[in-house]
């Protein structure tokens, strides 16, 4: 157990370190002026004071290792840099965006897990029949689509054509809703991006749940349960699902990275004001400080989510608790 956590902490520590090193070295190693790459702004457009500020903030006149230590120190204080494009500290910008991304990804993960588990189990139960083959073909097809394109099509159909849902943003501009009206407004805006993200993330979970359910159905204790005359529904819920869920948790964990990637492009389609859209805006405006900070915050979020999944896994599988993993 101790070894397992040692391994995990080392892994996450290394991920974080690599992220930091990438962020630190990219602007300094790239051809061109590091001043420009660090500020994300034409050097010519910066005032002399601003230029001085960039120089001293990143300690560009000092040796590289000194720069790295200063960089770490600033991060440790929660200082993510300064966006000269927006004239605001990057951390302020990110804090504004983070809740929106968490709302979208969180609800998509919950929704796709529920649907994936239900459909996966049903498909395995009805193996080879139309409902199995049909749902599998559908999910594989969805899985092969570019997620942003699915979003565009949904907007075209349900947003522009049918006008059931708003086509961009997270709130109606200038509406000033309060209380429940504001919540309803956000949910109305959330519907399409949520649907898109959910549809593209279901497949992985569906397929693994279906497969592990099939495996579990072949186990002897299931045959025993059947022989005892237990109703099929009870067998599925009491005996099969519990075991079939385990690989699902692993895939859930691994989905996190995909969900994050998915949001980047889907938020762009829907102009959803989250981190993904922020990253797109930063690319277009060459706002490097924002781009870097977003990458780092996203990495930290993925690490935290992985860590939570590591904590949850032993709760779901008692065997891990006693034997220790691996």
């Amino acid at each position, binding site marked *: 157990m101790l070894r397992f956590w040692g391994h995990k902490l080392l892994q996450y520590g290394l991920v974080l370190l690599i992220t930091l090193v990438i962020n630190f070295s990219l602007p300094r190693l790239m051809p061109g002026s590091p001043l420009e790459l660090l500020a994300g702004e034409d050097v010519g457009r910066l005032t002399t004071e601003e230029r001085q500020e960039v120089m001293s903030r990143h300690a560009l006149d000092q040796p590289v290792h000194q720069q790295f230590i200063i960089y770490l120190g600033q991060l440790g204080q929660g200082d993510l840099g300064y966006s000269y494009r927006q004239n605001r500290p990057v951390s302020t910008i990110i804090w504004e965006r983070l809740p929106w991304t968490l709302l979208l990804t969180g609800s998509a993960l919950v929704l796709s897990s529920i649907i994936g588990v239900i459909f996966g189990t049903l498909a395995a139960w009805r193996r080879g029949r139309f409902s199995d083959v049909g749902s599998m073909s559908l999910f594989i097809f969805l899985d092969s689509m*570019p997620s942003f394109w699915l979003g565009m099509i949904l907007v075209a159909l349900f947003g522009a054509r049918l006008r059931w849902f708003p086509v961009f943003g997270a709130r109606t501009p200038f509406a000033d809703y309060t209380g429940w009206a504001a919540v309803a407004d956000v949910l109305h805006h959330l519907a399409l991006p949520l649907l898109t993200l959910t549809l593209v993330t279901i497949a992985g979970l569906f397929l693994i749940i279906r497969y592990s359910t099939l495996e579990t159905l072949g186990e002897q204790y299931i045959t025993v349960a059947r022989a005892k005359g237990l109703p099929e529904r009870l067998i599925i819920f009491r005996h099969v699902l519990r075991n079939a869920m385990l690989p699902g948790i692993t895939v859930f964990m691994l989905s996190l990275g995909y969900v*994050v*990637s998915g949001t980047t492009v889907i938020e762009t389609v829907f102009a959803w004001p989250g981190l993904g859209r922020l990253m797109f805006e930063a690319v277009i405006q060459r706002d490097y400080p924002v781009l870097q900070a977003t990458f780092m915050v996203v990495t930290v979020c993925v690490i935290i989510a992985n860590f939570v999944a590591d904590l949850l896994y032993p709760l779901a599988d008692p065997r891990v608790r006693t034997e220790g993993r691996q």
Partner: protein
Amino acid sequence: MSPKGMLKAIMKNRTGRIGIILLALIVFTAIFAPWLAPFDPYERVAQPFQHPSASHLLGTNDIGQDILSEMIWGTRISLSIGIIAAAIAITLGTAIGILSGYYRRWLDTILMRFVDVVLVIPFLPLMILLAAYLGPQLTNIIIVIGILTWAGPARVIRSQVLSIRELGYVQAARSLGGTDFKIMIRHILPGVMPIALAQFIRAVSTVILIESSLAFLGLGDPTAKSWGTVLYYAQTRGAFLTGAWVWWVLPPGLLITFTVLAFAFTGYTLEEILNPRLRSAGPHHRVFFNSEAVEKNRG
């Protein structure tokens, strides 16, 4: 198994047959793009924003380029990016997988820990960051995708090496005093080639999806328009809010989807032929999950 034998075995399988036929169509279009396309996709050949007509079957885009020609030439770009980047990834993955599985011990531990680390890093954000700094050139995009997608295949190939290295002929070569390098190149590498090929085919579909995402975010090379690049312009010009989505947004996405499916179908079938153990779980299951779910989830 010879390449011919593999093709025959794939064609016997229904899923595999669909994959191969789609692949043949796509490759044909990519090779003969200059003859198939009615116009030069980089030339302004008509009024912008035209609806489909006899001379422009899919209409024209915001600056009057023929969309059908963009689609046909895009096949070439998307496919080349997919193949070259996947080749880089699989070469790296095979090398690391062989080293790791052959030497085992500390080298294996270090390399596989590194694979674990790479698998946690959120993929698309890192690529966006790198692509933004490196600039939107075709070669940069290919290299970035290539060097960031090797980790999954490396793990699969390593496990194959672990079993090959215990086989009689490898043991014989070792006891005859063959050097490690020679054994790895002469005996291990041919053994993992089929698995590496299956991994390569599947990697192409992953790469094509990733490339379309990068291009959609404005990080594609404007001088080499892929399907994703076309979608980027359709998005920035709001084509999906007007009736133009039918001929401007729908076709590139469908082409990406069917190309991804074509490669995925072929790859899965090949994998199943090479590893019959995967077939035991039933006629329809085809192990669409396996490492694919894991890998795709890193998208």
